């Protein structure tokens, strides 16, 4: 099972309008980058050991486009759990919905991205594993399935890594750089285009785990902006660098 998430496009996100999120007009969504690395690992397991891959997302109807893209990359099938937009900020609620989905289905391995680029919590994966009573490892930079175990390297501080043999079933949250994600082939895009992706209802919330959060644009900070032609800007920057340190 691979868990994916649709996130607002980071580059075009209007920080100044952050307070109105998610009601910002014309907001574009795309697949979370980290999930692309998880999907690539799944695609390799599908080709390498013949794993069957199910892609799941929890979210409102707008996320179907990204789910379809994810299934085209690595999935045999895909499901959307109908989590309302208002519950999106609660990682426990998302994890609980995914756990309800996973429990009866007998998966051996769950892959997800190390974090979502919008909320940046690194929480849903470990919470999902906790609810299933499975071990988890995050963020993982190397993965190999050997004799019913997952051999993983997970990242510690300042680039150090630790190797673990994780019993399966288990959950692995994948870090960027573990692989180079592929593009979906045309035949796969066509395969998924007509595919029916079932929508499942979500159970009522179990516990008051939601926090009240508001978004705002950050303060401008101390930066002095230089404007003008490239030549004029270069002249000012060069002068200021020379003034700040005799480095030439």
């Amino acid at each position, binding site marked *: 099972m691979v868990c994916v998430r649709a996130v607002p496009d980071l580059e075009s996100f209007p*920080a100044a309008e952050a307070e109105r999120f998610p009601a910002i007009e014309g907001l574009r969504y795309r697949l979370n980058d980290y999930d692309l690395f998880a999907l690539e690992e799944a695609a390799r397991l599908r080709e390498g050991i013949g794993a069957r891959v199910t892609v799941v997302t929890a979210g409102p109807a707008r996320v179907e486009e990204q789910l379809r893209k994810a299934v085209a990359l690595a999935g045999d099938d895909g499901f959307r759990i109908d989590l309302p937009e208002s519950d999106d900020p609660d990682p426990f609620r998302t994890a609980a919905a995914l756990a309800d989905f996973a429990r009866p289905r007998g998966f051996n391995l769950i892959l997800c991205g190390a974090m979502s680029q919008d*909320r940046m919590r690194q929480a849903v994966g470990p919470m999902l594993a*906790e609810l299933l009573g499975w071990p988890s490892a995050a963020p993982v930079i190397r993965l190999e399935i050997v004799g019913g175990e997952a051999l993983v390297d997970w990242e510690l*501080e300042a680039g150090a*890594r630790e190797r673990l043999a994780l019993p399966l079933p288990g959950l692995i949250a994948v870090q*960027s750089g573990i692989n180079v994600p592929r593009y979906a082939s045309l035949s796969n895009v066509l395969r998924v285009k007509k595919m029916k992706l079932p929508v499942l209802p979500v159970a009522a919330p179990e516990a008051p785990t939601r926090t009240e959060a508001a978004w705002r644009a*950050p303060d401008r900070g101390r930066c*002095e902006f230089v404007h003008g032609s490239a030549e004029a800007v270069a002249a000012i*920057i060069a002068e200021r660098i020379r003034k700040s340190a005799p480095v*030439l």
Partner: protein
Amino acid sequence: MMEVVIAVVGEAEGGRVSGGSREAVAFVRRLSTPARVIGVLLSDSRDSAAFWAQADGIEVMPGLAPGLKTYEQRSFLSALIQVLDRVRPSLVVVPHTARGSDFAPRLAARLRLPFTPSVCGLDEGETSPLLIRQVMGGKVIERIELPEAAVLTVAPGAFTAEVGSAPGMVREVEVNPDPPAARVMGRSEPPTADAGLARAEVIVAVGRGAGETGIPLGRELAACFRRGALGSSRPLVDAGLLPYELQVGQTGATVAPRVYIACGISGALQHTAGMSGANFIVAVNTDANAPIFRLAHLGAVMDLRELLPELIERLRSMRGSEQ
């Protein structure tokens, strides 16, 4: 009124306690709620607990067991729950490290508590303090009302540890950790940072926005300086375009050159953690909202492919006239 108890889960580090553990205590003190702060330390030795109790002037409850010498998720979590059952805290505060990010969300799920990770500041709210954290790659600030009970992690470097005024105290707790689920097979240290990077006075760092075509320009710009070096943020290293030895940030090198020129780097916390100590920071990025501009002293909102050739030419002519 019932006394508020806040547990800080520390990390033992060779007979002492990690800086992050003490920063987490500093965060709790800034909450300005009268609370009893209890440090929880799971390890195989007593020394760290005594050190921490004295350094921060808090009560430390170490859970000691031979199996806790190295961190393993299942053993650690079971021992932690045993200690927390005794402490009965409303808030559990954890340093946001690799290990903290591994167990804290699981702890929150097990205890059915709200979870707020990587808190990097505090604001005053109307009824409760507001926790500040970065979202959207640092482009947006999220403010969260501090719940009555929750699990939080505190970003490294966000709060400054202070010497405790009260005498500390250590109360040992007996724990029986569950057997480990995973086998820990060993640890590997990263290759040392590039020697040029470590002693550079000027670092020209390239990021996702620079792409493959921006790398030669960055290298050329670095060569304009007497002790210049090329650095990188994570995406170009992940993509295999530059070696790990050039990576600056949380998972790479920490540098503090006189001048840092960030080219096409958005400036998320993961990168700035490794370079915020630079004396003079110049940022070039096409996105005026990129968080790197909050840290930079001087900024240009433009394509580095246009700016860098001009800058290289300018610096070369200045260098020529100085010699």
